[in-house]
């Protein structure tokens, strides 16, 4: 890193910049560090970062906003009826929802099904009792893109302030995390 700065310092462009704008070498270095830190951030959701917007229609066509779930832990689960691992994960969710919903845990399923009938059928078959949202634009979904979802299942655990605190916790991991979260809440 220092070598890059030193190299840059030798270039006449840098010297002109320094004399013209009277900036110190240290502040330029700080700018460079900031720039490098910002590089991998892009527009992807990161842990402890606010969840991207999520507003989609439910089974009755009414739009549901994730913002309405503030003050609760929510698992946002991207799935599809034609995705075998998603259907297996649904079983885990049914079990955990039953156990933790009474103490405030919420699940928000977001399906990328193009075929609404197949989606509804899967909800019935898997016995999903929580709110079900759908984006029939499937892989062209703007929402999925904002959430950096490139495959399903893909799930995000959102805390009470609307921050993503974990991604793709499966089976035991999710169970452990929920146990930990709801243990903490008890006085």
């Amino acid at each position: 890193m220092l070598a890059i700065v030193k190299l840059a310092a030798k270039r006449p462009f840098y010297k002109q910049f320094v004399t013209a704008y009277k900036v110190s070498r240290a502040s330029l270095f700080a700018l460079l560090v900031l720039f490098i830190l910002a590089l991998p951030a892009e527009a992807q959701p990161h842990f402890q970062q606010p969840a991207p917007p999520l507003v989609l229609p439910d089974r009755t066509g009414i739009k549901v906003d994730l913002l309405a779930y503030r003050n609760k832990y929510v698992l946002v689960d991207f799935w599809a009826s034609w995705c075998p691992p998603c259907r297996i994960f649904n079983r885990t969710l049914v079990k955990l929802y039953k156990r933790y919903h009474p103490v405030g845990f919420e699940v928000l399923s977001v399906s990328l099904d193009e075929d609404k009938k197949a989606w509804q059928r899967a909800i019935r078959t898997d016995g999903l009792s929580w709110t079900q949202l759908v984006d029939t634009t499937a892989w062209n979904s703007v929402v999925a893109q904002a959430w950096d979802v490139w495959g399903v299942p893909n799930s995000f655990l959102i805390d009470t302030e609307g921050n993503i605190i974990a991604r793709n916790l499966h089976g035991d991991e999710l169970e452990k995390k929920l146990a930990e979260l709801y243990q903490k809440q008890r006085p």
Partner: protein
Amino acid sequence: MLLLLFWGQQHGFAQFSQARLQATGLTCAMCSKAIHQALEKLPFVQKVTAQLKESAFDITVKPGQHIEPALIRMAVEEAGFFIGALYLIRGEESVMPALNSPFKEGGSYYIVVEKAARGEGRTCQILNEHFLTEKAFAKIQAGPQGTVMRQQPGSIEGSIVFYLKCQ
């Protein structure tokens, strides 16, 4: 008569209007955006639908266009997966190609090396290497189909020949 011949060339061989693709890999192929998008980008593909029961993609070919199996393989492999099975499905009005005689459709050459006694022969599986699992390919190579395939040309005018088993 000439018109009829011309019509035949235009429509008689626009046979494969659909395909069914089973892809394999370390993760669920159907659940990946990459493979979906790679398939949808192919010039002859109209629509790609994932099927849960068959754990396969159903590919609809654009009207007037021809399916190119080599491009499907490229798309699948670039997305990080392999072809587990690729079935080409002829339209209802199309004619069953003669056994063991090469024909061309679009930029690809095909030879039907086997036709099941039952069925219309509308669904044809490609038996070439890299178009089915390694295990299935080895089995076919060792069986009677392998003998038939070795008697046929491997390529025509520099293009690979796809061997088909139709049922």
